[in-house]
């Protein structure tokens, strides 16, 4: 390339300042700049821009490494065919287990040797000041008792027995 005019010289300036021009082009560029004040002014702009590159903030590289590792996980790079097959088999088993799981409203079969639990119906129990239960049911608080959506069905058999005794007394 012959750096014969200003356009060609200005196109070449970034490469020239990066040191990537050949000796012949560098000589032609120098000759042109010696005679052209306008192109010399442009050299100054390119030089200033090159002097102030963007710097990577401290800590960004470590942050990126962590993000890449978290996204990919070291194991994913090394999953062999047998490992993939094992993972697929595990997925099939898990899927099967989920399909066989009892659905909402469906009672799972339960084997128990304990006597049948005492069942209390909410309709059979008269209105009661729940604050009286504060000392009866451990772990409850005033706010928790009245703001909670818990029902009698949530109480254990022992707690129901205690409640019935308190109501009868």
């Amino acid at each position, binding site marked *: 390339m012959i750096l014969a005019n200003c356009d060609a010289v200005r196109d070449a300036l970034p490469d020239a300042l990066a040191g990537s021009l050949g000796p012949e082009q560098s000589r032609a560029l120098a000759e042109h700049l010696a005679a052209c004040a306008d192109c010399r002014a442009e050299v100054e702009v390119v030089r200033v821009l090159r002097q102030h590159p963007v710097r990577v903030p401290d800590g960004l590289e470590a942050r990126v490494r962590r*993000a890449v590792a978290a996204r990919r996980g070291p194991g994913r790079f090394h999953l062999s065919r047998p490992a993939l097959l094992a993972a697929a088999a595990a997925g099939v088993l898990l899927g099967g287990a989920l399909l066989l799981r009892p659905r909402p409203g469906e009672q799972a079969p339960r084997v128990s040797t304990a006597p049948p639990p005492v069942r209390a119906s909410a309709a059979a129990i008269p209105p009661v000041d729940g604050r009286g239960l504060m000392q009866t049911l451990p772990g409850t608080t005033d706010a928790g008792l009245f703001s909670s959506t818990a029902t009698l069905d949530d109480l254990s058999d022992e707690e129901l027995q205690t409640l019935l005794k308190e109501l009868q007394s």
Partner: protein
Amino acid sequence: MVSTTAQLQFPDASESDEGRLVAAARAGDLSARDELIARYLQDVYAVAFRLLGERDLAQDAAQDAMVNALGALGRFRGEASFRTWILRIALNSARSLLRRDVRRREVPIAAVEEVAGVGEDPASRAVLLTEAERVRVALQGLPEKQRLSVSLRIEQGLSYAEIARLIDSTEGAVRVNYHLGIKRLRGMLT
């Protein structure tokens, strides 16, 4: 126009070296993956910063770009250099964040810390920061195409043709935008 289309050589990253590194990372070599991060994060972050003009967003974009690029190594075909490929991903990540972040803010003063070359001496530090800040503000004041053309040409050392491929433009349009940008910067910086 040899100078504008010539492939720049990077002393620490010849094409064969780059190819081996990418192949190793793709095969699961974690040290190769880390080496790719160390080698290209500077360029990725710089491109994102020049597009976004904001430090925190640029960091997020750089992180997204590196995660996406290293997660998609299998799709790198080697048709362009890896550097061009990852810079395109950086631009896409930055544009994506730009679309999401409609709260374009003024760049905080702390962003001047982005600029390298700051000395230890407080006096020279102040002078250099001033000039660095002038450069940043001047570049940020350019229209996006001019800013990217100038930044990618001077800071990244890409040819007009490479820039055109990167920003989906033509070589002629990039050249015009570069010269328009430089002309405006001459008025601001000299």
